[in-house]
């Protein structure tokens, strides 16, 4: 069995893996050990099974096997595999976005009871982005037009996505020049599937360009549309106090864990779980109340908008059930382990699937239908409450839980920096230019059993803030850093360098800002663009002192996110493993040549502190190119100092 201390920095994992062992329940860490040794061909991106003649494998040590049966080289095979990962990730984000657009449209037409447009201001900005005339139209009239245009973006065949216009002008020009401006969200994904079929595109650089086009269609298309529509429907996040880690489960209440990625159903479960009818039912079953908690990105969504506690990240989903205290784990889509029903079999927990796209043998299925969503939410909450009397005495809820501040949408950061009449990125730009803040890092992504759970995120982020780099976070990465106490204002004084701490303490923000779920990485793109447009830090994201990372990545979505960061001009470092290492030429192209072509590039470093240092080195390189490297050392200039500076 896996050793909890070795596999995770989180004490809850140690405690609950011990319990699982006693209860005779297998965890993902046990299965990870069973999978060793991994197939090295697959690990290096050198295994192809795109046709019935394979699988074909390329010998990474230069042996005889240098081409597949069809003649495909290591470069072709690894590039095809890499961009199919982008297609998978972009499809996941975009299908999420399409689902939101459908509910949004139904809500606008009054066909989805329980939903309404909560953020008129966000709707108005979307109307402006989409060229919808506002005038005296009602919210619903505008929302119908916005919803129809948003939905059409996915299937658009010609032209370019509307949100491309939000990128810095110089970036748009580069994308046009390279021919990577996405025409429609779906089209670019389909074209990847075509071009990676046997015998179509065999030039790794050309394959990668299509990967770039689809990834941009994700970041500046599907994901951005999902985030904006969710904001308009449920509200743009404000700073909110929450709590995180498994200690948020309660001994004497009905615990409902909402896990997955969409806020569509969970928003209504939040409403329903507070209704008197449900609270009375819970009391009648012997519970003191209903305790709703989140997990993974659905957790992040309801945390950002309601301060609902987050029980844990991707790797805590099985151990959450093993507490024996969860009456229901309600799941929608993405990053839900297929093992959950078999873990739940050993306890009283009911796993409730809700999406027709994601069913789990052994789970109870209560389908989410936007036209009848309130009833679905009620049925789910009732099922959980009715399960409370089945809870056994074999319960162990870990004590660990800490405070965090979440809810840092771009709009809110912009507001916090200037207030109602002076909202602006100017203070941020000024503090980057004067060197109090060295740069900006986006640290995002998943957890992987291939790294020590949580260590990559926490160690990297601590190293970055210690060196005055402000960190923007989403997804499970954000959950891990929150668990480590990095997302409270007090963390600035404790962990950040003096310059960053000074700025954070003045504004009253933590040095690590929680921006949401993984589709919300689009918020980071918008924040970076605002900094560019504000002026003084170059004309393009690639000129800014900025870097990205996913130290514990595992999903195809992470590859798509990483590639749209790169395609937007960001140096992006991944940890754990990297799927192209078997092809030297492709890896060189991704890690070096792309910087010349598109301004951003990939990096790979499994040690999180070394990875952070690579990011800082890149940030310093950009500071130097902008001519602001000296300002970090500036105090008050006397004439001698000025002369000295000018002479450099």
């Amino acid at each position: 069995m896996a050793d909890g201390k070795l596999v995770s920095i989180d004490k809850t994992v140690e405690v609950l893996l011990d319990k699982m062992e006693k209860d005779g329940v297998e965890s993902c860490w046990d299965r990870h050990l069973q999978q060793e040794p991994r197939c090295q061909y697959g690990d290096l991106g050198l295994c192809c099974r795109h046709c019935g003649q394979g699988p074909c494998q390329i010998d990474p040590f230069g042996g005889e096997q240098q081409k597949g049966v069809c003649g495909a080289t290591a470069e072709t095979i690894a590039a095809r595999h890499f961009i199919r990962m982008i297609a998978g990730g972009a499809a996941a984000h975009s299908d999420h976005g399409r689902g939101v657009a459908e509910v949004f449209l139904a809500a606008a037409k009054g066909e989805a009871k329980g939903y309404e447009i909560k953020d008129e201001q966000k709707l108005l900005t979307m109307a402006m982005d989409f060229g919808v005339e506002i005038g005296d139209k009602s919210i619903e009239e505008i929302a119908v037009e916005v919803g129809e245009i948003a939905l059409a973006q996915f299937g658009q065949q010609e032209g370019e996505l509307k949100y491309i216009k939000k990128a810095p002008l110089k970036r748009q020009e580069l994308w046009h020049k390279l021919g990577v401006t996405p025409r429609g969200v779906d089209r670019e994904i389909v074209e990847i599937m075509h071009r990676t079929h046997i015998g179509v595109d065999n030039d790794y650089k050309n394959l990668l360009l299509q990967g770039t086009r689809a990834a941009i269609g994700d970041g500046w298309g599907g994901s951005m549309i999902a985030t904006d529509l969710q904001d308009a429907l449920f509200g743009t996040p404000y700073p909110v106090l929450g709590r995180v880690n498994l200690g948020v489960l309660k001994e004497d209440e009905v615990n409902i864990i909402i896990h997955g990625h969409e806020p569509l159903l969970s928003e209504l479960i939040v409403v329903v779980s507070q209704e008197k009818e449900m609270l009375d039912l819970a009391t009648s079953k012997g519970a003191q109340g209903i305790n709703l908690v989140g997990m993974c990105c659905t957790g992040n969504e309801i945390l950002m908008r309601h301060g609902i506690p987050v029980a844990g990240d991707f790797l805590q989903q099985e151990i959450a059930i093993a507490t024996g205290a969860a009456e229901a784990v309600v799941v929608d889509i993405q990053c839900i382990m297929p093992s959950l029903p078999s873990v739940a079999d050993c306890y009283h927990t009911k796993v409730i699937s809700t999406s027709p796209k994601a069913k789990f043998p052994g789970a109870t299925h209560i389908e989410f239908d936007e036209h009848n969503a309130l009833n679905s939410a009620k049925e789910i909450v009732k099922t959980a409450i009715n399960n409370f009397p089945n809870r056994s005495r074999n319960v162990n809820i870990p004590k660990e839980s800490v405070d965090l501040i979440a809810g840092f949408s771009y709009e809110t950061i912009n507001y916090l920096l200037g207030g109602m009449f002076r909202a602006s990125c100017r203070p941020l730009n000024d503090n980057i230019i004067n060197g109090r803040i060295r740069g900006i890092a986006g640290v995002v992504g998943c957890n992987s059993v291939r790294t020590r759970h949580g260590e990559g995120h926490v160690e990297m982020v601590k190293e970055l803030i210690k060196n005055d780099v402000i960190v923007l976070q989403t997804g499970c990465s954000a959950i891990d850093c929150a668990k480590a106490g990095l997302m409270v204002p007090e963390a600035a004084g404790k962990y950040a360098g003096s310059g960053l701490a000074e700025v954070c303490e003045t504004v009253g923000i933590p040095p690590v800002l929680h921006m949401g779920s993984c589709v919300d990485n689009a918020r980071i793109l918008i924040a970076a663009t605002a900094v560019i447009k504000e002026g003084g830090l170059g004309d393009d994201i690639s000129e800014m002192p900025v870097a990205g990372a996913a130290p514990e990545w595992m999903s195809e979505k992470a590859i798509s996110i990483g590639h749209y960061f790169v395609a937007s001009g960001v140096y992006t470092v991944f940890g754990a493993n990297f799927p192209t290492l078997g092809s030297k030429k492709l890896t060189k192209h991704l890690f070096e040549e792309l910087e010349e072509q598109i301004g951003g590039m990939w990096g790979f470093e499994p040690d999180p502190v070394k990875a952070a240092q690579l990011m800082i080195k890149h940030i310093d390189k950009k500071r130097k190119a902008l001519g602001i490297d000296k300002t970090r050392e500036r105090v008050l200039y006397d004439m001698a100092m000025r002369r000295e500076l000018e002479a450099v």
Partner: protein
Amino acid sequence: MEYKTEEKEAFGRGKVKVLGATFEEGKPEDVKMGKWREKMTNRKEMLKYIETGERYWYSKDWYGSEKRKKPA
């Protein structure tokens, strides 16, 4: 509130006095706190804020790095 200063180590310039935390200690209790968008109660105010606060995309005449550029 009373402003506090603290002594800190600054990069390349030894110990410096800096402004300490300017936020009130404790946890926010009012659920409405921080909901800045609710300060705008009608569409006119919202549009005005969008044009100024979010001028990077929604002002006809934003300033900044791109003012001199032709549209892409």
